[in-house]
C-alpha cells in the first residue's frame, strides 16, 4: 500500500513545484508590469522620474485607490459595486453642507459662516457611505437581487439624491481645517492623502490576511454554499463588504471635496471603472475567493502611472482611455492564461 502511494505523491510534489513558478509569475505580473512602465516612462520622459511627479501620481490615485480597497472586499465575495462614484458624490455634498452649516434648503444654518466643524463633516460623510452600503447590502442579501442590479440602481439613486440635495450646483470654499486632509503635506512634500490611502491599505490587508473575518470573506467568495454548510453567516458577511466599500466611498467623498475645495454634484462620475479596473488589474478574481489588497494597490498605481506618463508625453486623453481599456482586458486574459496552466 505504501509503495502504491509513494509514486503519485512524488509526482505530485514535482508538479506543485513547477506550478509554484507559474503562480509566482502570475502573482507578481502586475508589479513587474508597473516597474516596466516606470522604467519606460522614466527613460522616455525626463519629467516623469522626479520626486514631485511621483508623489503627484500617488496623490492622484489615492481617492479611487481608497475605494478600490473596499471594492477588493466586495469582489472577493464575487460581488460588484457600481454605485461607488454616486455614493462618493452624495457623501461629498452632505459633508460639505455640514462643514458650511447648511445648503439653505436642507440643513438650516444655525452656526452662521462657521459650520459644524470638520470632525462632524467627516463623520457625516462616512455615515452616509455606511448607510448607503448597508441599504445595498441588505437589498442584495434579503431581497436576493444580484449585486450588479442593486448597485446599478444605487448608482442612479445616489446621484439623484446628490443633485436633489445640492440643487445641482457645487458647494465650495471651505475652511483651512476642512482642506487639510485633502491638500495638506507632511515631512516636506508627502501628501497626507497618499498616507491615508496607504495606511488604510495596510489595515485592510492585515484584516484580510490575518483575521477570522478575512478568511471568511475568501471562503464566502470561493464557495458560498460550502461556507454556509461550514457554519458561516453568509448573508451578514456579504452585507458587511458593501458596508466597507460604503465606508470608503464616504471617506473619499469628504477627501475629494477637501482636495478640490469644492463638493461637486457630478463628482466621481465614471469612478466605478477606475476602481474596478484597479482591483481586476491587481489580480483579484471577479469570480471571488482569489486576490488581495497588495494587488489592488499595484493596480491603482499602474493606472495612475500610465495616465500620468501618457499625459506627460502629450498623448490625448481619448487615446489614454483606449489604452486603459485594452489593459484591463489583457490583464484578465493573462490571469486566465496563468490559471489555465495551473489547472493541469
Amino acid at each position, binding site marked *: 500500500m505504501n509503495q502504491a502511494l509513494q509514486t*503519485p505523491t512524488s509526482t*505530485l510534489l514535482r508538479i506543485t513545484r513547477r506550478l509554484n513558478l507559474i503562480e509566482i509569475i502570475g502573482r507578481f505580473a502586475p508589479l513587474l508590469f508597473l516597474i516596466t512602465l516606470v522604467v519606460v516612462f522614466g527613460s522616455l520622459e525626463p519629467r516623469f522620474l522626479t520626486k514631485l511627479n511621483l508623489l503627484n501620481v500617488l496623490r492622484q490615485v489615492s481617492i479611487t485607490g481608497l475605494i478600490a480597497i473596499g471594492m477588493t472586499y466586495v469582489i472577493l465575495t464575487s460581488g460588484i459595486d457600481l454605485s461607488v462614484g454616486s455614493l462618493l458624490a452624495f457623501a461629498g455634498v452632505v459633508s460639505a453642507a455640514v462643514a458650511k452649516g447648511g445648503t439653505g434648503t436642507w440643513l438650516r444654518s444655525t452656526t452662521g459662516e462657521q459650520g459644524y466643524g470638520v470632525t462632524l463633516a467627516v463623520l457625516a460623510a462616512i455615515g452616509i457611505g455606511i448607510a448607503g452600503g448597508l441599504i445595498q447590502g441588505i437589498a442584495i442579501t434579503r431581497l436576493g437581487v444580484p449585486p450588479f442590479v442593486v448597485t446599478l440602481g444605487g448608482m442612479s439613486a445616489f446621484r439623484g439624491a446628490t443633485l436633489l440635495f445640492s440643487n445641482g450646483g457645487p458647494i465650495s470654499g471651505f475652511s483651512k481645517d476642512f482642506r487639510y486632509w485633502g491638500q495638506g503635506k507632511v515631512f516636506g512634500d508627502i501628501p497626507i492623502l497618499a498616507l491615508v490611502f496607504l495606511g488604510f491599505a495596510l489595515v485592510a490587508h492585515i484584516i484580510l490576511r490575518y*483575521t477570522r473575518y478575512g478568511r471568511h470573506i475568501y*471562503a464566502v467568495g*470561493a*464557495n458560498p454554499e460550502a461556507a454556509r*454548510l461550514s457554519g458561516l453567516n453568509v448573508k451578514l458577511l456579504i452585507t458587511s463588504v458593501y458596508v466597507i466599500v460604503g465606508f470608503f466611498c464616504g471617506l473619499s467623498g469628504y477627501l475629494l471635496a477637501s482636495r478640490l475645495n469644492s463638493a461637486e454634484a457630478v463628482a466621481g462620475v465614471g469612478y466605478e471603472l477606475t476602481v474596478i479596473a484597479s482591483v481586476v488589474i491587481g489580480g483579484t478574481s471577479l469570480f471571488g*475567493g482569489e486576490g488581495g489588497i497588495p494587488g489592488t494597490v499595484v493596480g491603482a498605481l499602474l493606472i495612475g502611472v500610465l495616465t500620468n506618463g501618457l499625459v506627460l508625453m502629450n498623448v490625448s486623453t481619448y487615446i489614454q482611455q483606449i489604452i486603459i481599456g485594452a489593459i484591463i482586458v489583457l490583464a484578465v486574459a493573462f490571469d486566465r492564461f496563468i490559471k489555465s496552466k495551473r489547472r493541469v
Partner: protein
Amino acid sequence: MNDHFLLRMIDIHKAFPGVKALDGVSFDVRPGEIHGLVGENGAGKSTLIKILSGAYQPDSGVIEWEGQRVHITGPLHAQRLGIATIYQEFNLIPPLTIAENVFIGREPGRGAFLSWPTLYRQTRAVIDRLGIDLDPRRIVRTLSVAEQQMVEVARALSMKSRLIVMDEPTATLTENEVGQLMSIMRELKAQGLSIIFISHHIEEALQICDRITVLRDGRLVGTRAINEVTLDEIIRMMVGRSMSELFRRSTTYATDEVALRVRNLSRSGNARDPNAIVLHNINFEVRRGEILGIAGLVGAGRTELARAIFGVDRFSSGQIEIDGRPVKIRSPRDAIRYGLGLVPEDRKQQALFLRLAVRTNMSLAALGRLVRFVDFVSARAENELIESYRKALNIHMTGPEQRVANLSGGNQQKIVIARWLALKPKVLIVDEPTRGIDVAAKAEVHQLLDELARQGIAIIMISSELPEILSMSDRIITLREGRQTGEFLREEATEETLMHAMALEQTPVSVA
C-alpha cells in the same frame, strides 16, 4: 471472436506537465461489442477517452478507425467519424425540448426556418430505436437524470454513431434505471453498435460487457474476455491487492447514551419545487460511539433527512433532541453550536473551496477556536491543528498552502472530515463518505470512521453502497420515498433484506 476491429488505439502516450497520464496504452473495440474500461481515479480512463473523442491529442501512438489510420483533430472530427461520447455531466440544454436537444445544430427545415413536425417525427424514430417511450416535446429540464441520459443516447444514435463512449453512466441512476440502461445497451449492441462502458462498479461491467480493460497509473494492466475473469481478479488488477485486504470493522463501540434523537420529523412538499422530496414521520436515535447506517435508493430522502437535521433545509414538523434536550436548529450555524457536523454528499459543490489552500479548507469551521487576540487567527495554533490532522488522517499534501483542487478525491474528503473533527463534534453525519474516491482511500476513510466511533462520536452514515453500509454500520435504517421502511441490527441485515426494505413496500420492523 473475429479479428476485425472497429477501433484500435496502439501504444498511446500522453503526458501533462509532471505527470505521465498514459504510458503506452493499447486498446481496441470490435464491432457490436460492449467493452468495459475500469480503473481507479487517476488510472488514465478519462485521458484515453478524451483522446478518442478529440479533446486531447496524444503525444505518440496510432489510432486506427475501421482499419484506417486516423488523426482525430477535434470533437467535431470524432463525431463525423461516428464516435459519440456521453460524459457524466450531460451536454444538454435544459430549457429546450428533447427533440431540439437531439437534433441541435442539425435541425431539419428550410433555410432559417425550422420544421417542427419533421423534427418531432425524426426524434420519435430515434427514440423508438431505444425501445423506450418519451415524448419528444418534453422539456429536458423536467426529465429525470436517467431520462436525460436517454436523450444523450438518442442524440448519439441520430448522428449515426458507430461507437458510443459512456463515462460512468450508472453513477447517478437508481437500480431500476441501471437495469433499463443495460437493456438499451444490449439493444444497441444487437443493432451492431459498439459501446465503451466506463464504470466504478465492476459488478455492472461484468454483467454487461464482452471484454474488460483495466488501467492503472496510466498503464494497461490487461484486457480480459468476460468469461475468463472473476470480480476478485479485476479488483486485484485495478488496485494491485485483493478485496480481502479492504477494511472490515471488528467490534462495536456503541454505548447506551443517546446523542441524537429525531422524533416524527416530516418535511412537506414545496410549491416552488414539485420534485422536492417529502419526508414522513422519521424516528430514530443514534448513540455515542455508534455508527448508524441510512440506506435507501436515490430519491428515498436520505440526503434530505441529513440536510433537515443539520438545519440546511427547514422541516415542517418534528423534534430533534441532542443529549436528551430538545433543540431548535434553524441553520447550519445552530447545528454546529449543538455539536453536529455534516460531510455532505457533493464534496466539490458543498464542502470544498477548491481554489483555496488546504489551510482555510481545514480550519474554517474551527477558526473561532484559533483566535487568540481580537479576531486574529493564531498562525501557530492553526499550523499545529493542520499538522496534527495531516498526521492523524494520513493526508498527502505538500503543505498548508497547497490548493485543494490539486489533491486527490480521498485526500480532499479527509480534509472535509478534518474540518469537522477540529470542532470535536458529538454527532457526525457523513453522506456518501467514499463516493468517487479510490479503493485505498476508501479503506482509510472507513478506518477513520471506526476510530471516531471508538472515541465516542455518534456517526450517521448515509451510503448507496450496500457493502459499505453492511460492513460499517452497527445498526441500519432504510428509507423509501421519504418513509422509514425498516430497522436492522448489523447481524440481521443482508444485502437482500436491505434491498427488500429499500425497494419494496414493507411495514417498519422494530428492533427489540
